[in-house]
């Protein structure tokens, strides 16, 4: 199975590790993420103004690229790795599905592109893993069970809010936990799992982000998490750099590693996980504890 894949800017810069791991995970699970030949920024945030066309052009162009590639691959799906891109693309797509007049307007405006027909389905990588592959199939492919590893699946907000685009229970999501359980990890329940990490406030109001990170991380640490797992590059960035600042200020007494779900999947599913275990020595130590 081949999926059209939209990386987004972050996956090519600060989130490169996530992309590398996810492309490999896909291969291990028998599918392929095929990058759109050309793509633009997703638009970064979904503009909530009711009558604005310009701010949706980026996402619309990407939907058209997906439509083109989808014809070739015989699918109407488009996969993203970044939660922010998922959110923007899916909201724009939904807006067109609910407002045929707006779809018509944008098609008239973009007179050098083929018309967008409104049929693309935006999926986050996590959704592909859960819905199209399934925890059972993943479990069957585990090479290194993550026994002894206490993981805290952190969702953040972009995958689950607003309700119209959520692919899991908004208050008690289970998709990531189910996948991590399939890998043999011990999944802890953190009530802060759907709290916002502070998102783009990191640029203008770092203190607000630190407040968010402190609440999330403290809840995680008090439940004994060895590692926080996230599918979102911005959450990964904020939780990692935020903990560093909090630690320097003495507001937390240790820093919990924050890694991508895709990286943990590689460690568990691949024979070739040595590089990852070298980078994350604490995981190696935990897995060795199991042997006694």
């Amino acid at each position, binding site marked *: 199975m081949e999926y059209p894949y939209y990386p987004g*800017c972050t996956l*090519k*810069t*600060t989130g490169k590790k996530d992309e590398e791991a996810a492309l490999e995970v896909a291969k291990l699970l028998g599918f392929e993420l095929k990058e759109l030949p*050309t*793509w*633009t*920024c997703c*638009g970064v945030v979904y503009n909530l103004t009711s009558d604005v066309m*310009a*701010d949706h*052009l*980026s996402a619309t*162009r990407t939907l058209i690229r997906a439509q083109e590639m989808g014809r070739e691959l015989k699918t109407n799906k488009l996969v993203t790795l970044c939660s922010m891109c998922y959110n923007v693309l899916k909201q724009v797509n939904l807006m067109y599905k609910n407002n045929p007049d707006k779809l018509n307007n944008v098609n008239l405006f*973009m007179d*050098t592109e083929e018309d967008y027909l409104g049929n693309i389905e935006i999926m986050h990588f996590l959704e592909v893993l859960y819905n199209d592959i399934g925890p059972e199939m993943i479990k069957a492919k585990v090479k290194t069970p993550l026994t002894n590893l206490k993981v805290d699946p952190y969702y953040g907000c972009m995958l689950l809010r607003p309700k119209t685009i959520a692919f899991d229970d908004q208050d008690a999501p289970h998709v990531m936990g189910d996948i991590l359980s399939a890998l043999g990890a011990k999944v802890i329940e953190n009530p802060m799992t759907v709290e916002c990490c502070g998102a783009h406030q990191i640029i203008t109001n770092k203190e607000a982000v630190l407040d968010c990170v402190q609440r999330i991380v403290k809840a995680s640490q008090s439940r004994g998490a060895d590692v926080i797992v996230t599918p979102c590059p911005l959450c990964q960035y904020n939780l990692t750099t935020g903990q560093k600042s909090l630690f320097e200020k003495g507001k937390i007494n240790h820093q919990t590693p924050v890694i991508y779900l895709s990286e943990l999947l590689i460690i568990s599913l691949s024979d070739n996980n040595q590089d990852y275990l070298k980078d994350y020595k604490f995981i190696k130590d935990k897995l060795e504890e199991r042997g006694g």
Partner: protein
Amino acid sequence: MAEKNQIPLVSVFIMGKEYKVPSGLTLMKAMEYAGYRYTRGAGCRAGFCGACATIYRLKDDYRLKSALACQTTVDDGMYLVQLPFTPANKKKYDVEKLNIAHNVILKEYPEIARCISCNSCTKVCPQELKVMDYVQASLRGDIEKAAILSFDCVQCGLCAFRCPAEITQYHVGQLARRLNGKFVAPKAMHTEEAVAKLNSGITKKEISKLKVLKLAEIKDLYKKRVTE
């Protein structure tokens, strides 16, 4: 007979005033035919310098079109104006002191983050470059792609006029190409070798021979020269 051989005239509107000019002229020649005299904005007259950016509309077509005045021939009913200069801020940087971090272009030209992917720049480009795509590549630090996509830019500046995000695309592309040449593309070893060879003095012997020849001997040598 003379009438029969005459080139048919077409109507062009230069800054709103109608002129009858022979068909087949370039926009630049048509303007000169109409009486305009270029002191600036004529440039190379060969499609390379980008000094004669022109915008025009055709009758009953809402699209704003663009051209280099020296490269495009007149159409009947064309409304045109030439825009020989684009006011645009150009950053001063020392390429030796830059690097290829993913945000290097973004730091020099932060306004590229304002791109809304409207594609106006691509539509207006007389060189038919994928301008929006190279701005987007610059935004995500893909310097090589930005350099390749912008390679044929003649810096006419029309993209910067059309951009609703007020980006100066052609300067962005130029930075990308400089970074690509400096840090990404393989070094042109043959140039270095050729320069070293010249510096070693391999031409000295031949030149000193030529210096003492008589004019007739030089002419004779020229006639017998071997060309590629």
